[in-house]
């Protein structure tokens, strides 16, 4: 199967709708220097051709609405339709961001409420909805940290400690912020060891970035001790909040000694994600960092909400307008629909589902870090690979033949042949049981018919792709012929 691009389908003169000619010539309406010399080479196709092209592509798309999607660290939970309907209400969707504050008090109230609720969930004093994604939240927080250190006249801090299990975005955010990364090796139990941390700390350390639970799905049980050490060294504690689905209503980063945390609304708060967004990565901070948050801040003055731009210590804006507002609307709707008790159960069911899968598959694959996990579990195909030559990537590809999205593979880096499974709370026991049965069947096939796995997937529109050539010689744009 293959689908031509719209450029391949193009035939001169074809079009969908014929737009009326403007009453005045283009030269009268647009400054000459902005006019094109010749028309752009856009594809020329009819409306049915376009509609069918996209309908075919949509039918091929592998997505959370059609398939089980246990992609570890991504929290691919189901996105309730009601929240989409609410976000699509023209009262939100058609709102222009430049509308005067007094005409949009309802929208501002929604932002204020979401900030308050997120602060309560995180145990933080102030929240900014501006960062448009998780990594942007990390970067914004580090810039806030930097501004705080600078304001104290302590500008010589240049290092940020990042455990070797961290998401790749952590070191990237540090580098983007102009700091250096010190990698902290995990202890035998897969957690940060205060002893190793003591060696890495120093008066040039600006912060520790810690994911809790970490990417092995393990709760950092010594986090309070760790926070005390970091603070004693004059540094700040950053929580990568990507795994917040494991904490809702049960534990709060603020109570663990963290100074800032980002929330991936598109993960934990069930707004759609994948395909590059839009997401939202609000951050929560402790009171002493509030003056440095991105401007403007939402404030209440004489009974009305409005934007305060007079923020002399702010790091400035990190996103156009006020963040991805319609994502905030969905998250607001999710929190309203779930309530406090519902959010607590989200976490309980997510942790239960991950442990159910972990327990059921511990005899099929290796379990590098034994014991209960939080919202996701990391298994390893190391023994299977040694015995059969079938590797984590082959298992991942074969799952596609069963209409199951592969788990995250080869991450975290500290686990060989890693398969990181995050079922989320929205999957039924029947779905989990089928996944477990499929994984066992794949492991049997690995021993008996390894070629079946090496050549997988067999039933997808695009078969096994040559990832090496794709990476070495990427074709990034369509060319004629």
């Amino acid at each position, binding site marked *: 199967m293959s689908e031509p691009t719209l450029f391949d389908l193009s035939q001169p003169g074809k079009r969908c709708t014929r737009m009326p000619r403007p009453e005045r010539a283009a030269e009268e309406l647009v400054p000459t220097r902005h006019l094109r010399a010749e028309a752009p080479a856009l594809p020329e196709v009819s409306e049915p051709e376009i509609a069918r092209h996209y309908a075919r592509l949509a039918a091929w798309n592998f997505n959370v609405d059609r398939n089980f999607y246990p992609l570890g660290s991504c929290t691919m939970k189901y996105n309730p339709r009601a929240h989409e309907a609410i976000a699509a209400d023209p009262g939100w969707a058609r709102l222009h961001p430049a509308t005067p504050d007094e005409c949009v008090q309802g929208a501002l109230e929604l932002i204020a409420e979401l900030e308050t609720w997120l602060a309560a969930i995180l145990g933080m004093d102030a929240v900014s909805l501006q960062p448009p994604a998780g990594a942007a939240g990390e970067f914004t927080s580090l810039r806030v940290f930097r501004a705080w250190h600078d304001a104290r006249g302590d500008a010589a801090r240049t290092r940020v400690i990042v455990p070797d299990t961290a998401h790749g975005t952590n070191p990237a955010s540090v580098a983007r912020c102009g700091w250096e990364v010190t990698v902290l090796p995990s202890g035998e139990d897969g957690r940060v060891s205060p002893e190793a941390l003591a060696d890495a700390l120093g008066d040039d350390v600006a912060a520790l970035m810690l994911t809790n639970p970490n990417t092995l799905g393990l709760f950092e049980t010594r986090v309070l001790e760790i926070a005390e050490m970091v603070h004693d060294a004059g540094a700040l504690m950053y929580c990568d909040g990507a795994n917040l689905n494991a904490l809702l209503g049960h534990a709060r980063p603020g109570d663990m000694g963290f100074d800032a945390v980002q929330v991936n609304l598109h993960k934990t708060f069930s707004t759609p994600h994948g395909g590059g967004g839009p997401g939202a990565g609000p951050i929560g901070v402790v009171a002493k960092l509030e003056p440095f948050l991105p401007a403007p801040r939402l404030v209440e003055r004489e009974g009305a909400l409005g934007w305060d731009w007079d923020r002399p210590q702010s790091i400035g804006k990190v996103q156009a307008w006020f963040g991805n507002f319609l994502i905030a609307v969905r998250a607001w709707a999710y929190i309203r629909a779930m309530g406090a008790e519902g959010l607590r159960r989200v976490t309980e069911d997510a942790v239960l589902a991950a442990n159910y899968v972990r327990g059921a598959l511990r005899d099929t694959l290796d379990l590098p870090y034994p014991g209960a996990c939080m919202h996701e579990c990391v298994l390893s195909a190391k023994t299977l690979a040694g015995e059969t030559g079938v590797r984590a990537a082959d298992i991942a590809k074969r799952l596609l033949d069963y209409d199951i999205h592969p788990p995250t593979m080869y991450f975290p880096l500290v686990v060989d042949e890693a398969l990181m499974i995050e079922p989320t709370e929205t999957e039924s026991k029947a779905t989990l049981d089928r996944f477990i049965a499929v994984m066992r069947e794949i492991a049997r096939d690995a021993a008996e018919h390894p070629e079946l796995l090496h050549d997988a997937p067999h039933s997808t529109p695009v078969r096994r792709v040559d990832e090496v050539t794709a990476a*070495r010689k990427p074709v990034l744009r369509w060319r004629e012929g």
Partner: protein
Amino acid sequence: MQVPDDRKYAQTHEWAKVDGDLIRVGITDFAGEQLGDIIFLDLPEVGAEVRQGAAFGEIESVKAVSDLIAPISGEVREVNEPLMDDLDGVTSDPWEAGWMIAVAPEDPSQMAALMDAAAYAEHCEREA
């Protein structure tokens, strides 16, 4: 596993081999095995200073991006340019054609801090 005994080894799986006045540097067979197919290699320019224990370049496989750590301090005198266009060479011939840089050592006695072949083979056993 074959580990040549004509050179020394770092914990981070780089090798360092005396070649006249220079120290030639590459990554080991074991490192290549762990990385899988290499898709990108970033090496320093001739004339760059490298520091023992600090990154001198980057290597990216389909699995991950890793730092290349200098086993010795000094000035880069040669860079294996053809390797950049033949990334399979990193893993197909790690000990000879797969060398990455040649360094004029600032202090040749730094070689003493590295492992010999036997110690390195044991180090790999523990990591495997």
